[in-house]
């Protein structure tokens, strides 16, 4: 983890990165910036199965509550417990310390439905106009 140029992204500004055969998922900088200071995160249950692009977590910020969608299908195997007492880690380090969950992916072909860093950067440029 740590090099977001190698991550894959969704249109809803979540990211996924693969380490060995495990997927780490989180929210991209654009999302943490739009949400503002994050004050609470609700994790999915460990062992729960999630579908790609399905809601799996929700966050609350000083402004509003928002759903987070999973970039990939699979089984939730771990939640980042540091976020329970320090959800602001998502603001401070969204690509590393602010990861949300680890997922055991069930279908790696789903990567084709995601954007590379390059594609995502172009997608963001389109949003700013």
């Amino acid at each position, binding site marked *: 983890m740590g090099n977001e140029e190698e991550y894959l992204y969704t249109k809803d500004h979540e990211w996924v990165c693969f380490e060995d055969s495990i997927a780490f998922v989180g929210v991209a900088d654009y999302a943490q910036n739009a949400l*503002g200071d994050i004050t*609470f995160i609700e994790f999915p249950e460990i062992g729960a199965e999630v579908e790609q692009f399905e809601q799996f977590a929700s966050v*609350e910020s*000083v*402004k509003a*509550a928002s759903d987070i969608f999973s970039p990939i299908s699979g089984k939730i195997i771990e939640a980042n417990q540091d976020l329970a007492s320090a959800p602001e880690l998502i603001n401070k380090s969204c690509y590393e310390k602010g990861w949300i969950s680890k997922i055991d992916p069930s279908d790696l072909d789903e990567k084709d439905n995601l954007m590379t860093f390059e594609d995502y950067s172009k997608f963001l440029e389109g949003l700013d106009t």
Partner: protein
Amino acid sequence: MQSSLQKTPLYKFHCELNARMVDFGGWLMPVQYDGILSEYHQCRESCALFDISHMGEFIFEGDLKQDGLDKILTCETSGMSLGSSRYGLMLNEKGGVIDDLIIFCISEKKFMIVVNASNIEKDFEHLRNNLSDSSLITDVSSKTAKLDLQGPLSRDVLKKIVLGTEDLEYFRFDSFDILGEEGIVSRTGYTGELGYEIFCSPKKAEVLWQKFLDDDRVKPAGLGSRDILRTEMAYSLYGNEITEDTSPLEAGLSRFICFDKEFIGRNILLQQKENGIKRKIVYFLSDSRRSPRHGQSLYASDSKEIGIVTSGIFSPSIEKGIGIGLINIDSASDGDKIFFGDEKNKMPAIFTKRPFYKKGSLKT
């Protein structure tokens, strides 16, 4: 879309600071600069600068009693000393709140009234309709800028720029030489911290804004942090806790109502006192970091809906969600557990007493 929104004299500074601008009651206002929580801490721990120029200012010239101003306001105005200010309300005939305001006694026959931005036109019309023709009421909002300097260090910051302000006591004001022009500095605010509200011309406000920010102890703060600061103090916000359909007795504002005099809405309020009010304001603390939100429902422990959340935020000082709500009278008592949210998701909370934040430097 944004072109129809009004802008304060400091709009260009907010843009230069990359503030996030939002529509607030028809005004394009900064909701945050660097971040809502850091601006909150800036105000609680050091000194924060807010542009509050959108608020309305009226000047009344006349006799308080004979010309009818005293009858429009719920607070006692006779006997106000020069340089004192009071919080009060204007009510409609139904006893609902037209607006909340602060009245400043400039001289025996001259008062300034400061009202909410979104209510300026409505308030002015109500005043004009109810004041006698022998008095004069003038809307000076467009030529009056307002900066709020708030925080435990605000006294030290301000006294270097506006001489003589350090002796102002809580809820007192005076006119001062503000960078070569006469303006008003008032020891009031909306944050629970030691602080000042400064009224001056738009031109001077631009210079003053920059002078304040030249001081390393000062940082700009937006309406996002202001809402957290005021909610922690359990101060009412017009449109949330108080509306045209809310009685001030329900909203917990009876201490700002003087029943010893005549005022518009008095009879209804007396009836409400006699027969009892239907709803009451409550203050509650979430069990977790989950925060209530304005407009959500409140439920009793048996899941019965008992009211609404009027304001809800994450409290940085308590590190939990906090809320203010209006519930049906007798639907829950002090020790009961309640829930906030909607039909699908209900979060537990307990009642507490206001204010949520008790360590403010307000009266230091």
